[in-house]
């Protein structure tokens, strides 16, 4: 596919990819039209488009703007925020300290929560109980970070909300797998999920919970 000189915004992604959902939600929030190109991650071979646009990491999501690729979901969020700035709702806070805090938590989601939830879904028996405690502990930290705010961004839905909300599509999956209720363990986070799902852009992008649980069960060998 020759992307050079194209005026289109294209998002290359897989429907069940939480990192890609971030990009699509951000574009929805900004009201930016885009073309969606599905990359089937169930096929181990990457498409020529992905190999051309992201030769270093060979991963999705990729945002293609006027033929030029932007890669890595958090880098894409910052790009989207800067590219469509004046006259658009902003994602990142203005204050550098608040930006540092938001970035810190987004990286925590990527570096800790993502791995822990994968470990949790793959584990059985006693290990599962231990990892479940670890996962709940990490979610409680996010619960504390949210505090009494409506969103992680304060009164406004922002960068960290966009970064974390895709993971919520698996929350009922974790509950089924671990026999616990998120509403009891992390009540603020639970309320936050409902609040975010009421947003058009979020509900349009997040997949059906059953479908996403089924595909995770397949990937992680969950019985």
């Amino acid at each position: 596919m020759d992307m050079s000189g194209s005026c289109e915004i294209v998002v290359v992604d897989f429907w069940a990819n939480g990192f890609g959902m971030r990009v699509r939600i951000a574009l929805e929030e900004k009201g930016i039209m885009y073309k969606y190109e599905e990359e089937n991650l169930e096929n181990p071979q990457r498409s020529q488009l992905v190999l051309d646009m992201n030769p270093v990491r060979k991963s999705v999501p990729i945002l293609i703007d006027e033929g030029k690729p932007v890669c890595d979901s958090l880098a894409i969020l910052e790009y989207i925020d800067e590219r469509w700035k004046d006259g658009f709702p902003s994602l990142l806070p203005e204050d550098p300290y608040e930006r540092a805090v938001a970035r810190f938590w987004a990286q925590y989601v990527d570096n800790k929560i993502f791995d822990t939830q994968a470990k949790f879904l793959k584990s059985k028996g006693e290990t599962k109980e231990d990892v479940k405690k670890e996962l709940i502990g990490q979610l409680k930290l996010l619960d504390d970070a949210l505090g009494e705010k409506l969103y992680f961004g304060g009164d406004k839905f922002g960068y960290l909300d966009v970064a974390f909300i895709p993971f919520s599509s698996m929350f009922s999956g974790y509950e089924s797998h671990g026999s616990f209720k998120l509403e009891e363990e992390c009540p603020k986070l639970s309320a936050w999920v409902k609040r975010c799902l009421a947003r058009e852009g979020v509900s349009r992008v997040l997949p059906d919970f059953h479908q996403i649980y089924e595909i995770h069960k397949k990937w992680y060998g969950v019985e």
Partner: protein
Amino acid sequence: MPTDEQLLLLDLWVSPFSTRVKIALAEKGLSYETQEEDVLGGKSDLLLKSNPLYAKVPVLLHNGKPVVESTNIVYYIDETWPSPQLLPACSYGKSRARFWADFIDKKVFDAGSSIWKTKGEELEAAKKEFIDILKKLEGAMGDKDYFGGDKFGFVDVILIGLTTWFYVYEKYGGFKIEKECPKFAAWINRCKKRDSVAKNYVDPERTYEFVGMLRKMHGVE
């Protein structure tokens, strides 16, 4: 910098991540105090309070407010004191810089650690991976003098601190970066001529001694 601004860096002399932050501060002409942390012995109350989740250095306290994770700290420094700017001016350039900063953070130090932590076949595999990573970075730099293009920039700051440990990898891996990746070696030497880097570049021999001690602790010998 206004005299009522206070900067304190919680530091470990040998940490390449601390070096990274010190270079960023020097590029901006910022003065700061340091508090050396004995990370192997006992961490200070201030460190544990400032970075409760990870309890790691570096931590930059700006008027008492902590910023943690070295790359995050460099973003913070660049945004709070915008001149001279480290990140490129345009959004696309910024996105490429962020991409490479993330690649560097996920790959370089861990690949290097695999070299000094292993022996035999594992070591050979680790060496090969490390050199592959440097070659990818050479590709990113292209024909320019710096990752920032003609100017020393954000990605240069993110990466150059990590090279203080490269002598360690060369010694334990039995290779020379000058031979395997000459463009990369030339970039290191170019950066070391800058004041900000020269003043903060930890002596590789001291680092090598420190890692020798770590190897014993890890039971590698």
